[in-house]
């Protein structure tokens, strides 16, 4: 549905060339929810805006629903943009117009009769759970309600694609969940392809099927969300996954962590990641029996992503000399293992 090919974009700032996007290749399937995650300044905002040409790439191709947007005339580009809805972090509603007129705005840009507009807005109000708010003004609404208005407005022309620019980032956790599940409903019921950008791995975890990680204008990793969660390769990806898995070790342990064993009472610290229904407990019990090693579980976290469980665990081994054998055993049992280092505990 969306195909970005070899996208490059540079800015000139005070005479210096700044690379915003570098050789971006991205393919979003029809009907999927695709997430792009990156820190601030990674270029995700620019990348999203390249899809509807709010930002024009310096080179590359943007193909949406089979049309190469960079080849379109101004008039055809306007038509193509109508088939793409867009929502924003700060909602971008018209403050001087009520909910009805905000949602009706994109409809008024085409030659629809006021009766048709009336009906369509009514449908959209119901779809987004805003019945009864037609006459309210934006300043009378909560953040979640404002985003619902923005979503209704974005869906006015029954778009095939919805672009979401940090749509939940200005909302509290509960409202975030409600807005994300609304997006998921829209995706499932209307078949709208959603491309979203976020800096929160939780958003990716909750609704995305696939994800791309953007760092300094480049896509450093992309794939199925579950794969990225259980087998992150790049350091940036790992740190995003770690924020979501709540796996930051207490600072007193981190402070004492060495990459090599420094004395005999240093214990190896292992990080395990697992997915699927391979229950981890028998593996740990097996490890204890098979390798004759004492295990201390420091941290464990379990997640369900798209109905499949995945998790992570940090443990320390009492006997450093058994470390290699333990890692072998765990890997044979299908776990991702990483030796974080050595630490003297207690």
């Amino acid at each position, binding site marked *: 549905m969306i195909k970005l090919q070899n996208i490059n974009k540079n800015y000139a700032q005070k005479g210096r060339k700044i690379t915003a996007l570098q050789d971006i290749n991205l393919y979003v399937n029809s009907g999927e929810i695709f997430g792009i995650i990156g820190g601030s300044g990674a270029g995700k905002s620019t990348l999203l805006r390249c899809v509807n040409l*709010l930002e024009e790439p310096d080179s590359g191709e943007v193909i949406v629903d089979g049309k190469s947007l960079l080849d379109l005339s101004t008039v055809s580009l*306007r038509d*193509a943009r109508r088939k793409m809805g867009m929502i924003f972090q700060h909602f*971008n509603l*018209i403050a001087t117009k009520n909910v009805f007129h905000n949602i009706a*705005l*994109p409809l008024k*840009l085409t030659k629809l009769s006021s009766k048709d507009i009336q009906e369509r807005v009514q449908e959209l109000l119901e779809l987004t759970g805003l019945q009864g708010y037609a006459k309210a003004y934006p300043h009378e609404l909560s953040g979640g309600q404002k985003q619902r208005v923005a979503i209704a407005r974005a869906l006015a022309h029954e778009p095939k694609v919805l*672009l979401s620019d940090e749509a939940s980032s200005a909302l509290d956790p509960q409202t975030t969940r409600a807005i994300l599940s609304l997006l998921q409903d829209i995706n499932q019921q209307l078949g709208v392809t959603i491309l979203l950008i976020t800096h929160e791995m939780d958003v990716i975890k909750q609704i995305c099927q696939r994800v791309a990680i953007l760092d300094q204008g480049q896509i450093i990793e992309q794939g199925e969300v579950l794969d990225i969660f259980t087998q992150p390769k790049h350091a940036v990806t790992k740190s995003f996954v770690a924020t979501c898995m709540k796996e930051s070790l207490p600072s007193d342990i981190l402070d004492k962590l060495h990459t090599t064993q420094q004395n005999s009472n240093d214990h190896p610290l292992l990080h395990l990641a697992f997915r699927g229904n391979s229950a981890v407990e028998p593996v740990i019990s097996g490890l204890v029996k098979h390798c004759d090693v004492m295990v201390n579980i420091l941290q464990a976290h379990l997640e369900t992503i798209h109905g499949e469980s995945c998790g992570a665990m940090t443990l320390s081994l009492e006997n450093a000399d058994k470390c290699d054998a333990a890692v072998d055993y765990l890997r044979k049992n299908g776990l991702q293992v990483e030796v974080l280092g050595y630490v003297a505990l207690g």
Partner: protein
Amino acid sequence: MSPLVNATWETIYMVAISGFVAALLGGALGIILFLTAPKRALSNAAIHQSLGLIVNIARSIPYIIFMIALIPITRLIVGTSIGTLAAMVPLTLAAAPFYARIAESAFNEVSPGLIEAVTAMGAKASQLIWYVLLPEAMPSLIRGLTITLIALVGYSAMAGIVGGGGLGALAYHYGYQRFDAQIMLSTTAILVVMVQVLQWVGDYLAKKLSRRS
């Protein structure tokens, strides 16, 4: 008291007509200045800079000089340089660039995110103006119009001195040249009331339209 009533009406007439025309002209200029600026929907450096220069020149000339310098043009347009009608030409031409800058800054206050959202909807420049820029900037446009009208009340009094009508002429001829203190005080009082009413109405409308908490 008839000359006073008469002069009051002349002032209201001059200010209202020239204010109305200046709002239209200046508003249009403000929109063009806004949209032709860099990175805007119709960005065009040549138009933006030349219009900006014209506006700046017109605004840098003190009104009393502007009015006199414009006499030939006034004659060309209304056939005479004396009277209420003639006074409205320089009033309008002075107020329009003044209001253009006010309108431009009112449009600059419209959220860039909203403009981006409407562009992403596939809106034409004309639709952007009509559905977004004008309604969103309206409270500021009205506040700016209030300032412009009050400035026009002042300018119109100056017009009175060089042959225009209105309260300025009355105060000058009766109050200054004939030492009529009563007329002097009365015209001053009427001008004060006029400015108060304008400010009050402007504030009320702007507040009513702003829809912000």
